[in-house]
C-alpha cells in the first residue's frame, strides 16, 4: 500500500502519463541505479527497475517523449533491451557486478573475442597441444606476461594488477627441473627479481609505478627467454622515450608496436630491436 502510494506520488508530476513494462538486461543494484538514471527526465519520464524480474516500469509523458527514445537512452547507458542493444564500449564501462550476460550478443561477443584477441585463444589452444607434445615450461609465464603488457598498453591499472596476479602464480608454478641447463642458470639469477616486480605490479593500481616495475620485469624476462629457443616468435621492442628519456624495453607476441609505457598517448612509439625465434 505504501509502495503504491509512493508510486502514485512519484508520477503525479508527469502529465499525459502512460506506463509500460519492459524487460531490461541488468544484474545488480548498480544496474538498477544506472537504468533508472538513464530513464529519468524531470517531469517527463522515469523508470523503476526490478532486479529479480528484470522488468522496468516506465512512465512517461506521451506528448514529450516516447518509449523508443527512453529505451535508446537506457541502451546508450549500457543496458540491452528489446529495441536497442548497448554500444560495446558503453557495456564495457559498466561496473564489475553489472556485466550481465548479453543475450543475442553472445555469438557476436564470442566472434569478436576470436578476432580481437586471436593470439590469446591461439596460444591457449597451442598450450594445450604443447603440453602433450613438446612442453615449454615457461609458456604460462610468457602468456601471463603478455596479458600484463596488454593491460598496460590500454593504460588499465586495474587490469594490470589483476593480470599480475596470474603472473605471480605462473612464476610459482614453473618446474625448474624441466628447464634446460642454460635456462636453469638464468632462472636462478632472475627468479627473485621477476617475483619482486610481478608482486609490485599486482599490489598497486598506479600505472606509473606498474610501468617502472614492468621495465625491469621485461629486462629479466628477456634474459630468461633468450636463453632458450622459443616455440613462437618473440619480438623484443624498445621505446627511447620511456622512463623520462632513459628508454625501456618489452617483449611482444606481435611485431606491430603497441607501447605499454605510454598507452594511447604514444601507442606506436618504439621499434623492434630483436626477434627471437
Amino acid at each position, binding site marked *: 500500500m505504501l509502495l503504491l502510494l509512493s508510486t502514485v506520488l512519484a508520477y503525479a508530476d508527469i502529465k499525459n502519463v502512460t506506463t509500460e513494462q519492459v524487460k531490461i538486461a541488468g544484474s545488480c543494484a548498480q544496474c538498477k541505479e544506472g537504468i533508472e538514471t538513464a530513464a529519468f527526465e524531470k517531469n517527463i519520464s522515469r523508470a523503476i527497475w526490478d532486479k529479480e524480474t528484470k522488468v522496468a516500469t516506465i512512465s512517461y509523458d506521451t506528448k514529450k517523449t516516447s518509449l523508443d527514445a527512453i529505451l535508446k537512452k537506457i541502451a546508450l547507458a549500457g543496458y540491452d533491451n528489446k529495441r536497442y*542493444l548497448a554500444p560495446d*564500449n558503453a557495456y564495457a564501462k559498466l561496473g564489475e557486478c553489472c556485466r550481465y550476460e548479453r543475450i*543475442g550478443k553472445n555469438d557476436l561477443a564470442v566472434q569478436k573475442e576470436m578476432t580481437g584477441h586471436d593470439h590469446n585463444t591461439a596460444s591457449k589452444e597451442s598450450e594445450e597441444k604443447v603440453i602433450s607434445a613438446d612442453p615449454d615450461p615457461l609458456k604460462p609465464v610468457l602468456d601471463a606476461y603478455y596479458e600484463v603488457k596488454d593491460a598496460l598498453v590500454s*593504460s588499465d591499472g586495474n587490469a594490470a594488477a589483476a593480470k599480475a596476479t596470474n603472473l605471480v602464480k605462473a612464476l610459482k608454478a614453473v618446474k625448474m627441473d624441466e628447464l634446460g641447463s642454460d635456462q636453469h642458470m638464468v632462472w636462478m639469477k632472475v627468479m627473485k627479481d621477476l617475483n619482486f616486480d610481478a608482486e609490485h605490479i599486482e599490489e598497486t593500481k598506479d600505472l606509473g609505478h606498474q610501468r617502472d616495475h614492468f621495465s625491469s620485469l621485461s629486462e629479466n624476462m628477456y634474459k630468461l627467454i633468450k636463453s632458450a629457443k622459443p616455440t613462437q616468435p618473440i619480438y623484443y621492442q624498445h621505446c627511447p622515450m620511456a622512463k623520462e628519456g632513459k628508454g625501456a624495453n618489452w617483449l611482444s607476441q606481435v611485431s606491430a608496436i603497441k607501447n605499454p609505457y605510454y598507452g*594511447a598517448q*604514444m601507442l606506436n612509439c618504439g621499434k623492434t630491436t630483436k626477434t627471437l625465434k
Partner: protein
Amino acid sequence: MDFPQIPILKATRTTAFLLLLSMQVYGQKVVRYNLYVKDTTVNFTGTPKRAIAVNGQIPMPTLTFTEGDTAEIYVHNELNEETSLHWHGLFLPNKYDGVPNLTQMPIKPHTTHLYRFPIIQHGTHWYHSHTELQEQIGMYGSMILNKKKEPAIPTVPIVLSEWTDMNPKNVHRMLHNASDWFAIKKGATQSYSEAVGHGYFKTKVGNEWKRMTAMDVSDVYYDRFLINGKNESQLSQFKPGDQVRLRISNGGASTYFWLTYAGGKMTVVANDGNDVEPVEVDRLIIAVSETYDVIITIPATTAGSPPVSYEFLATSEDRTKSASLYLGEGVRQLASPLPRLKYFEGMKMMNGMMKMNGDLDDMGMNMSLNQMDMNVVMYPEITEALKSKKKRTGKAMDMGDMKMDDLEKADGNQHAGHNMYNSNAMSSITTLNYAMLKSPVSTSLAKDAPVKELRFVLTGNMNRYVWSLDNKVISECDKILIKKGENVRMVIYNNSMMRHPMHLHGHDFRVLNGHGANAPMKNIIDIMPMETDTLEFAATESGDWFFHCHILYHMMSGMGAVFSYENSPANPEIPNPRLAQRKLFADDREFHFMAENDIATNGNDGEAMLQNTRWSIGSEWRLGYNDHHGYEVETHLGRYIGKMQWLMPFIGFDWRYRKMEMDEVETNLFGQRNTKDQRSVFSAGVNYVLPMLVTAQAEIFTDGNLRFQLERMDIPVSRRLRMNLMVNTDKEYMAALRYIFTRYVGATAHYDSDMGFGVGLTLNY
C-alpha cells in the same frame, strides 16, 4: 527503402517513355527528369517552417543516369523567387554548370529552364541550388551516375543534411554580427566562469589576449541532422551477412559529419565519384559537399539467434546532435555516440598556434591532407586516456601539457613531432585521411603540357565573419585566367581559423598525397587550419568555373574566385556579362543590419549598425528621460583595414543636448571645455582592437576637442551573462551587465556617468 521513392518511379516511367521516343531519333539514350521547385512547409521540430521541395520532397529526388546517357533536366521554377541548379562534380558544358550570374542567368520565377548535357563519367555525385541560401532549406539531392556495368551489390544513395528553424538569411546576418546565440544553444560559450570552473582561466585570458573569441569547429547551431530527410530511419530489407554500398553525399550547408557504423569497420571504395583502392576504417569525417562510397557489412548471426539491425550514425562535427540509419531488421545495435568536445583544450591549442598578428604558426609541422588533426586535443575518445594518465604519472613526459615553446626542442624527436596530433597513431581507432586514398589507375597528367602554378592563402576573420582568398572576397578579385591545354597546379595554404572545403566546378583535380601516379581524383578538398595541400588538374574546358569554399555562409561572404579560360567563346546564357557580374558580386557586398536598444530606468540607449566586408555605418544613442540627463547621438562611417580588420578609420557626426546648471562647467582630461549642453560637430577618428578585445578609439571633433576612449563589449562572464566596460577622456565611464534570455531579449543593469544607475530590458536584432 524508407525514403520517398514515388517521384523517382514516376520519373523513371517518364524516362522509359521518352527513351522509346528518343531511341529512334538520336540512337542514344536520353534520360529526362522534370523537377518542380516549389515552396513548402515542413515540421522537423514541432514548429511549421518554410522550406523548398522539389517534386514534393526533401531531399530532392535522386537522379540516376548511366555513363553514356544524355541528361535532359527540365527545371520548373514555381517559386516566387529566382533559383538555379548546380550539378556538383559533373563534367559538362560550362553553360549548364548552374551558377547564376556566372554560367547562366537565374531561373526567373514561374519559368522553365532546360539543362541538357551528356553523361561522360560515373560515380556518386549530387546536385543543389546555387542561388543564395536555398541549399539550406531543402534544395539538395543525390545524383548517381552508374557505370555501364556496376558491381552486383545492393546500393543505397544517402544525402546528409541539416535543418534549422531559423530563416537562413537571419542565420547569415547573425554570423556577420558576431552573435554568440549559436554558442549559447550549443553550450559552447566558453565563458570566464566556465573557464575558471574547469581550471582554464589562463587559457581563456590568453585567448582573448590574442584577440580571439570562443572557438568552435562549426558556426551554426542546427535543430536537426538528417539522413535522406529523416533523423531516424531503417532499411529493413537487408539480411545478416549482406554487404551494402552506401553512396553518401554531404548536402549540408555548413556541417561536416563523422560517420561511424555499429556493425564494424567500413570499407571506403570511392571518393567524390572516383574509385579508390578499398581502405578499411573505423570512422571518417565527410566534408561539406564531399561524397564517399562506403561498403558496410551486416554481421552474420548464428542460426537461432534473433536478427539485429545496425546503426549507421552521422554525427555533426560539433557533436551536438546526430542522425541514424538502421540497416537490417530486428533489435537495434547502437553505435557509440561521440563524446562532446573539450572546447578549452581546443582553445589552448589555438592559443599556441595563433601569433599576435593573427597569422597561424604551424611550428614547422608541415601539415597536410587531414593527417594531423589539431582538433584531436578536443576528442575525448582519443585523448581521454592521456588525461587520466596525467594525474597518475605526474612528472612523466606529457604531450597534452607540453608548452608550445618546448615543441621545437622536441621536434628533433620523431615521436613527439609526428604523433602529437595524429589520431591514428594515438589510438586504435582508424580515422580516414586523404593520404590513405589511392586511385586504382594512373591519374598522371600529360608531361609535356605547360604548367601554371597558382598559390592561394585561405584567409578569414571570425569576429567579423569575413572569409576570403588572399584577403580578397569574390567581388574584389579579378578572374584567374587559365589556358586550355595547360596543367594548372594549385598550392593552397589555410591561414584562417576554420577548415574550408574548397570546391572546383567542372573539373576533378589530383591530390598530391604521396601515391605518385596513383594520386586520387577529387573535386572537393577539405583544408584544415595551417594545412598546405597541392592539387593539379588538366585545363581541358572553356568558359568560367567557380572555385569556392562550399560552406554556404563562407561562400556567401565572398570566399571564392572564378577560373576563366582565355579566349572562350561568349556564353549564350549570359546576354549581359556586366549586369551578371554586378549581380554575382552583390552577394558578398551585401550589408548586414544589427540593432540593439536598452530600455532602462535611467534612460534609453542603443545602437544600430550596417556593415559589409569592408564598410561600417553605425549610430549609437543615449537618450535620457529629462534634459539634465541629456540626449546624444553619435554616428560613424568607417572602413575596416587589413586582414584582421582591427583598424578602422572613420568620420562621424556627434549631436548632444543637455541642460546644465548655471556655472557648471565640464572639462575633459586635456583641460578642454566640453560643450555637451548643445553641440553638433563633425569628427574624424580611428578605432583599433587591442589585445583582450578592447577597442581603443581616438576621435577629434571640428570644435577642436579630442577624445580618447577604451571600450570592451560582451565579456562572457558566464554562459548567458555579458559585461560591457567603457571609459573615456571626457570623464565618462560605463559598466553594464547583461543577461541573455532569448535570441532577441535580455536584461541589463548598468551604471553610466551621465545617467547614473539603471536596470532595463534589452532588445537586440
